[in-house]
């Protein structure tokens, strides 16, 4: 088995807010991330798949195909969008880096042909990232 990682980038706006809490509580917990006009990041996504190397092609998965899947399932939905307002999974879940990693896993889980999704890593900034391995 070998692991293969493909990167993609998207730029999105978001804010952190829990509707069940008071304004004061939201600001206390989320700080400047709770500003209701939102802010944005250049996100880097790393998707790692695990599989056997095909003896004929030498591929785990066709990289071009993987790139197209990331583009179709994630980048076209997230890029240059407001995550809270325009991406359905964040209508209720707060678009933290953790929840973005989980949501991307759920978008990709059954979409990778001939390989198993191993890890979704989402960088919000180079010094902060979340990893999700599909653990429930």
């Amino acid at each position, binding site marked *: 088995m070998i692991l293969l990682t493909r990167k993609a980038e998207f730029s999105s706006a978001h804010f952190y807010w829990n509707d069940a809490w008071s304004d004061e509580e939201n600001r206390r*917990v989320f700080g400047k991330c709770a500003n209701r006009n939102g802010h944005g990041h250049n996100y880097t996504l790393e998707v790692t798949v695990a599989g056997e190397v095909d003896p004929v092609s030498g591929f785990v998965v066709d990289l071009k195909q993987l790139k197209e899947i990331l583009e179709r399932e994630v980048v076209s939905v997230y890029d240059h969008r407001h995550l809270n307002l325009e991406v359905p999974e964040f209508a209720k879940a707060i678009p933290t880096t953790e929840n973005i990693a989980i949501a991307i896993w759920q978008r990709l889980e059954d979409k990778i042909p001939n390989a198993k999704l191993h890890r979704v890593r989402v960088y919000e900034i180079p010094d902060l990232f*979340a*990893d999700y391995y599909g653990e429930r």
Partner: protein
Amino acid sequence: MKAHLSRRYHFSASHRLNSEVYDAERNREVFGKCNNPHGHGHNYTVQITVSGEVDPETGMVCNLAELDAFAQVNLMDRFDHTNLNMLDCFRESVSTTENLTMEIYRSFRGFTAAHLERVHVEETSNNSFDYADDKGNDFGLG
């Protein structure tokens, strides 16, 4: 759902690799230029990985502000712009990045808002060290 969260911190410090057990010649032989008498310095990058259930109320493994506050006291205030050899933790051990990584791991065991998975320390862009959550890494902390 369980996720991993990693945060990177940067500090600068000096050190000198020198073992009390060796004589001067042996120290030079083992540690090379790292044994130069007046020390040298690095820009260290420390990557802390914690894990836990994502809280449905906050969407977070732990509040980053709490992790940053802990790191400010236990990492930055402690190591940034210091001479590592002068610190209590290196009084009896060599200030290699292996030992530094383990010391940082030991200190982040005190962060209780999430489970400490791994400490990764980059001494230069070519050298990095990891200490992970394995059995026996409890440093007597239980």
